[in-house]
C-alpha cells in the first residue's frame, strides 16, 4: 500500500511536510519547470535492484533522458564511470548539502544555483537529515526525492511503495523525458 508516512518511523517532521507525488507525470512536469535541476545520487544506488535491473541503470537512463545534472556522492562516481556515464560532478553528500544552503554558490560548473535538488539512494536517515537542513536553511530551494520511501522533509516526495511501483514510476519518467526529445 502507498503510504505518506516517513519510511523510518521516527523521522517525523513538524509543521512543514512534503507534498506526495502521486503520479510520475507530476514529477516530470515539476522537473521541466525547473531551470537548473540537479540529482544527488547516493551509495545505495548499486544496492537496489528493481525488477532485475540495478537502480543505477535506471538513474543513468533518467539522467540521459532528462539532461538533469547528476552529482554522485561517496564513491559512486566510479560506478557511473564503469557504466560509461560521466556525472556532472561528485562530492560528499555533506558537501553538496552545504553548498546548496549557500545562496552565493554558483552551482555546478558555475552555471547558477540550482532551483531544484533531487535526491535518490542515500541512506534514508542521511537523506532525511540533509533534506531537513535544506528545508530550514535553503527556503527558496525546492527539493524532491526519487526514492520509493516517503521523505517528509522534502518539498515533494514519492510515497512509500514497493520496488515494482518504483520501477514503473522511474520507467514512466524516463519515457516521458525521452518522448519530449
Amino acid at each position, binding site marked *: 500500500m502507498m503510504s505518506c508516512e516517513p*519510511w*523510518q*518511523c*521516527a523521522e517525523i*517532521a*513538524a*509543521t*512543514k511536510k512534503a507534498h506526495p507525488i502521486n503520479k510520475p507525470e507530476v514529477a516530470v512536469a515539476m522537473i521541466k519547470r525547473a531551470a537548473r535541476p540537479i540529482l544527488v545520487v*547516493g*551509495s545505495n544506488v548499486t544496492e537496489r535492484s528493481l525488477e532485475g535491473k540495478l537502480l543505477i541503470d535506471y538513474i543513468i537512463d533518467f539522467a540521459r533522458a532528462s539532461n538533469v545534472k547528476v552529482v554522485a*556522492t*561517496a*564513491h559512486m*562516481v*566510479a560506478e557511473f*564511470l*564503469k557504466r560509461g556515464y560521466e556525472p556532472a560532478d*561528485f562530492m*560528499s*553528500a*555533506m*558537501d553538496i*548539502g*552545504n*553548498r546548496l*544552503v*549557500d545562496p552565493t*554558490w554558483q552551482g555546478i560548473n558555475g552555471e547558477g544555483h540550482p532551483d531544484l535538488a533531487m535526491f535518490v539512494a*542515500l*541512506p*534514508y*536517515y*542521511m537523506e532525511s*537529515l*540533509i533534506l*531537513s*537542513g535544506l*528545508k*530550514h*536553511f535553503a*527556503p527558496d530551494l525546492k527539493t524532491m526525492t526519487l526514492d520509493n520511501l516517503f521523505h517528509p522533509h522534502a518539498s515533494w516526495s514519492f510515497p512509500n511503495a514497493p520496488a515494482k511501483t518504483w520501477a514503473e514510476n522511474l520507467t514512466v519518467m524516463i519515457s516521458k523525458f525521452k518522448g519530449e526529445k
Partner: protein
Amino acid sequence: MTNKGLRVKAKELKTDIALVKGLELSVGKVIDDTWEEPMGPTPMPHITTLRDWDLKLLNKYKPFYMPDCDLCCLCTYGKCDLTAGKRGACGLTIADQSSRIVLIACSIGAATHTGHARHVVDHLIEEYGRNHPLDIGGLNVDVEAPVTRLVTGIKPETLGDLDEVLTYCETQVTHLLSAAHTGQESNNLDFESKAFHAGRVDQVGMEVADIAQVSVFDFPKADPEAPLIEMGLGTIDNAKPVICCIGHNVVPSVGIIDYMKANKLDSKLEVVGLCCTAIDNSRYFDRAKIVGPISWELRVIRSGIVDVLVLDEQCVRTDCALEAERINAPVIAASEKNCVGYKNRTNDPVDEIVNDLVSRKVPGVLILDPEKVGEVAVRVAQKVMPMRKKQSSLPSEEEIIKLAKTCRHCNLCQRSCPQDLKIGPAMTAAAEGNLKPLTELYEECIGCGRCEEACPVKLEIHSFILKAGQKFMLQETNFCRAGRGAVQDIEIRSAGGPIVLGEIPGILAAVGCANYPHGGKDVYDICREFAKRRFIVMTSGCSAMSAGSYRNEEGQTLYEEFPGSFEAGGVLNVGSCVSNPHIAGAAIKVANIFAKRNLRGNYEEIADYIHNRVGAVGLAWGAYSQKAASIAAGFWSLGVPVLVGPHGSKYRRMLMGRSDKPENWEVYDARTGDTVNVGPAPEHLFQTVETPQEAMVSIAKLCIRPNDTWKGRSIKLSHYIDLHKRHYGRMPKDIHQFVRTMADVPMTMKDEIKDILDAKGWKETVIPDPTMLPRMIRSKKE
C-alpha cells in the same frame, strides 16, 4: 605542582606596633611550583578565554546544520516550531537551537567523563592517599599529562593534584551547561565555541581518569608490547562461572579480580566484559576477556553465558537488568549513576546479599563498595552457575519457524531498524523453514532491539537473528591488544619529525562506538589499509575491539600483524574511552617534544601548530553517544578533523570547509608575515562519510597539512591519488589545490598531473611556516 589553601587564625596578635584581635587571614592557594616551564597565556581557560581561537576555526569550517527535530520542547513556552527561520517564544532560531543541542550533547559527554574521573580519583585518594605518585610510563614518559598541562597549566604529580584539576573541569561543565538554559546564549557560533570548550574540558577529564588508573592499578604503562587479550564469545570457557561487567568504570571490576586473586580463584571463574570496562579489565588482568563492543549487550545476555551481571556506568542498556532476569542471572548495580531501582545493600552483610541473590529473593542489588561488589559477584557466580545451567533466552530453531508463521508482514520491524535491514523477507523465509536470510542479518545488526519493540505480535526478532547467527557468534575468537596508555616520549622524538614533515603520511585514530552501518569489518578494513600504507593507526574503545575482530589471509588479527608502537605502520590500542587523550596527547607532544613549543597553558599556539602541521585524522565510524560528541569536540578544538560514519550525520551539525572559496584557506607565513593561500588542508573539521571507500579517500586527503615539506606532500598525494583512483575510478578533481611546487608532485605521476595543472591555470606558490595567529609572526611586514 601543588596548590594548597593557607589559613591563619589568631585570637590575639601582639606586635611592637599594635595589638590585633580576631585576626583571620586566608590565602586561596600557595603555589609550590617546581615546574620550570613558564606559564602560557591561557591557564585554566574559562568558557570565553579561547573564544577567538574557536571563532577562527568556526569561520574556516562553518557549521552545516541538519536539524533532527523542527521543534524545541525544552521549556513550557513550547513546543515551538522553528521551521525555516521562525523564532521560538524565547527568540531562538533553528540554527541556535541546533548548536545548543550540540553544546548540550558535548556538556553531557564532558560531565560524564569528568564524573567518571571524579569517582576514580576520589576512590583512589581514599585508598592510597593524596600523595600517591602518578606513573604513566616510568622514565619513558616525562610529559605525563600533556592535555592537562596544556589546558590547565598544571603539571600533576600526585593523585591530589588530579583532584584540583577535576575541580576546574567541574566548574567549567557547570558554566557550559548553564549557558544552554533558556534565555542565556543566543548566537549559534557562541554555542559552538562553548561546545569546543566542553571538548577541551572533556579531554582533561578523560586524561585524569586514565592516568589515575594507569598509575595506581598498574595498567600497561606506555607499553607497545602490552599483552594480547582473548576476545569474542567463543573464547569464554562455558564450564566456568561467568561474571560479565558492562560499562566504563573499572573500579568495581578491580574489586572482583582482586577478590578472585586473593582467594586463588582467578583460574576458576571467567571475568568478561563489554564496552570500555572490558578494555580496562584486560589492562588490569590479562586473563580477563573482552566479549565485544557496546552493541552486543543483548547478544551476550540472551545467549545465557552470563551467571552474574555487573553494571557500572555509561553506555549500559537500561534494560540489561530486565534481560538478565529472563536468564535468571543476578545483577549487581555498582555505580551511583546507574542504580537500576535496586535497594542499596552497600552496608548489608555479604552473606545476606549473596543468599538473597542466589535464592532469587531479589533480582539484583545496588552495592557502592567495590570490594563488596567483588566478593558478592564471585560468590554468587559460583553458587548460581550450577543452578542456572547457562539458561538462555534465545528460542530454538523450531520455535523460530513456528513463531515466524505468526508474522503479519506489516514491515514495521524494517521501518524501525536503524540499518533498514530486510527483516520482513527474512521472517517470510523463516516461516518456510529457511533461516539463512536471518543469519545474513547477524553481522549488520547493531543489537538495538527496536524491531522487537515495533512488532505488533511481539515477536522477539532480535533473538531470532541471534539464534540464526549463533554459529558465527560462538566462532568469534580473536585478539585485542590491551590498552597501552600513553605514547612514550622517545617514540615522539623518533616519529615527530617524519610526521611534521609529512614523511609519515598521517595518524589515523579509529575511535568510538559500534553504531556501524554495515558491521565492524569496515573498521578493520580501514585500519589495515592505512597500517599497510605505513600511517600510524591508533585505536580505542569499541573501535579497538572491532579492529581486532577479523583476520588476514594468514589468520592474524590486526594486532598480531602490525607492531604496537608509535611508528610508521604501527597499530596502537591506547585503551578505553578515557584513554583518548593519549591520542590528542601524542599530537600535543609532537609540538612539545619535537618542536620544543611550551605546553603550559599555551592552548592556542599548540592547537595552531597541530592544525597546520600534524596530519592526524579521527575516525569514529560508529559514533553514537554524547561522549563521542565531546571527544570529537576536543579534537576539533585542537584543529584535528574528525570523520564519522553515516549514522554520525545524526549529530545534526557538520563543520565544513569550502574548497571552492580560496579566501578561506589563507594563513600567515610566520617567517615574513605574508598571507599565503595553502589550499583546503585540512578540508573539513567534522564530516559524515557514507561508505568505507569514501572514508579511506577522505582520510588520506585530510592528512594533508600546510606545513608538509615537498617530500612529505608528495608522499601524501601519492596515497590520496592512489586511493582516489582505486575507489573513485579517476584522478581527484582538486589535485591542483594541493600542489604548491612541482616538487610536490609524486614522481611517477608528473606528466599526468602537469597536464591537469596546466588546464587549471595552476601557479606555483611558497611553502610557508603556517600559522593562523598573528602573534606568531616573527618578522612583521613593513
